[in-house]
């Protein structure tokens, strides 16, 4: 068993990773609650944004800052465009169908990425990665701080937004019943568009941070989203605060397993195992019931 000293640096990586998971988790939950769409293309869109950012920096056409901003905007624009084009026609369908449709977008992004940027090792460095400070004797860089802080801040901000603003209330209403919400005069399409855009911007931001923290690889970034999905599943796609806690736990557990050599190579399955156990545990008392919303 490794000593406490070996674990210390991984607490930092774990918290940073947890912050990004929280970021994508919140984006997923908000979108799911407002539109009923579980966006499985979340990771792919963020990854594509990161690649575009890398290309812009590589060519030197725009300043780095603008390139990073474009990554985030790309996430927002693509997700919003998808939402506007495919949201309404699929609105009345089963959540499973809506989620499956987003796999289409994920495949388009994946195909485009491996076509345009062939599988080659690349790295995307935020300027904040280069400056660091020490806590105890562990080196912490500013990107890690930003990732964690942003995750917590966005989760807190979103929870407050949903609770206290009109649009937030409308989103919560949509989560309960789309038809009744529409009858009450809520501009459903506009509220949904806001959710798509917000979720997309978070996809871009998560893509940028993950590309920095983990590495710029299309498949890795796309499927790392499944790990953050684990956190949202633990929250049953509902609670923002549970998503935040679950995301940080998932991030911490997968990072802290690293120094334990016996199981280190199995660390990537930590999110899946946690999510599976949580889901089965949460559904343990469920009888087969057919309680469905009327309508």
């Amino acid at each position, binding site marked *: 068993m490794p000593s406490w000293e070996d674990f210390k640096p991984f607490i930092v990586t774990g918290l940073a990773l947890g912050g990004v998971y929280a970021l994508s988790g919140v984006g997923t939950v908000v979108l799911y609650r407002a539109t009923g769409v579980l966006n499985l293309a979340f990771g792919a869109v963020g990854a594509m944004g990161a690649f575009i950012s890398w290309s812009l920096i590589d060519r030197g056409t725009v300043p780095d800052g603008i390139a990073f901003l474009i990554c985030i905007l790309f996430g927002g624009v693509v997700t919003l465009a998808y939402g506007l084009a495919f949201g309404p026609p699929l609105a009345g369908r089963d959540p499973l169908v809506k989620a499956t449709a987003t796999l289409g977008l994920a495949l388009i992004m994946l195909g485009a990425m491996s076509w345009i940027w062939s599988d080659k090792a690349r790295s995307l460095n935020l300027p904040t990665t280069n400056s660091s400070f020490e806590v105890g004797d562990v080196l912490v860089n500013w990107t890690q701080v930003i990732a964690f802080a942003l995750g917590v801040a966005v989760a807190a901000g979103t929870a407050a937004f949903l609770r206290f603003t009109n649009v937030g209330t409308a989103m919560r209403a949509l989560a309960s019943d789309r038809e009744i919400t529409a009858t009450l005069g809520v501009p459903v399409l506009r509220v949904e568009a806001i959710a798509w855009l917000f979720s997309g911007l978070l996809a871009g931001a998560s893509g940028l941070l993950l590309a920095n923290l983990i590495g710029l690889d299309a498949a890795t970034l796309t499927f790392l989203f499944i790990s953050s999905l684990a956190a949202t599943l633990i929250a049953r796609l509902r609670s923002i605060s549970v998503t935040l806690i679950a995301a940080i736990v998932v991030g911490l557990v997968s990072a802290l397993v690293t120094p334990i050599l016996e199981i280190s190579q199995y660390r990537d399955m930590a999110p899946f195992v946690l999510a599976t156990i949580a889901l089965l545990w949460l*559904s343990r008392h469920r009888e087969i019931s057919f309680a469905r919303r009327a309508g």
Partner: protein
Amino acid sequence: MRARLGTGDGVRLGVIAALLLFCLLGLPGMLSTYWIDVLTLVAIYSVVALGLNVLMGRVGLVSLGQIAVLALGAWIAARLSFATGLPFPIVLLLSGVLTMVLGTVIGLPALRLSGLYLALITLMLAGTITVVLTATNFPNGGSGFLGYTDTDQGGTAMRRPSIAETDPAFYRYTVVVAAVLFLVALWHVRSKPGRAWAAIRQSEPAALAAGVNTTLYKLWAFALASFLAGVAGGLLAGSVGKLFTFQFSTRESILLLAVVLMGGIYSLWGALVAGAFMKLLPALLDDWGLPADLLTILFGVGILQVLLTAPGGLAQQFPRDMAKLGRALGRLFGRGSPAQEAAK
């Protein structure tokens, strides 16, 4: 139940038999080893697609982990093949049965979850299987339980059945096994389980009220899909000889879902189309010098198109389009269209 055969069925059976004979006897002589290997993969993946086709089209359950189940089947088959001297058909059967047991054990608790959550939990389990396989690798003749040895030569290839050592012979062997498995699936769909599944897909409460044991039949569907993937895994192990984890990525699972949807989930033919989409199209594109990534994009567009406009997929759309084309051509020649006159 004894199915009654009408004249339409007779013609259909004849066409299928002729097609099968052509695939078995005609094709191997006409093609190079490369294309025969590709067609072997098409047959194997249509069996995997068949499992997902039944799950999605008949019962209305979505699994995002069929490729991981395929990997499980391939691992079991390779392990059995290296550890024992069992004949190949027994290895196939055992890998099917063991995979089925594992799939059912995994599926049992998951059945409490419905729809979207079930699909997501299969995605999580697939991820878990992939991580484990990345760590353990596939058996290649090494010692111990895992049977993996890290040699420069890359280990020993898995043995093939003695009657099908060569590539064309193994291709024929695979086609026969696949045909048998399609018949198994057809029997399921046409008899009691099929009717129970249809009832469940329409409405679970109604099925329950009609006395259908919904849990049993849902589990049965999972078991069948896992069995099919298990046998397909055994065939895959025999076909390629050496297995690598990257062949069974999550991306492949999503691609499988795409091709199964595009092939059409309400007809077993859809599974055949899906197999061709999955393995033949990439080979063709490669042959024509086009990037295979183009196909990934097309499959993505395909998912969206199928879900929005053509839930029946190609298996339903193609005959309909052909009939339309036939009618259009009939009208064209019947009237002697002005366009044709002008062309002369």
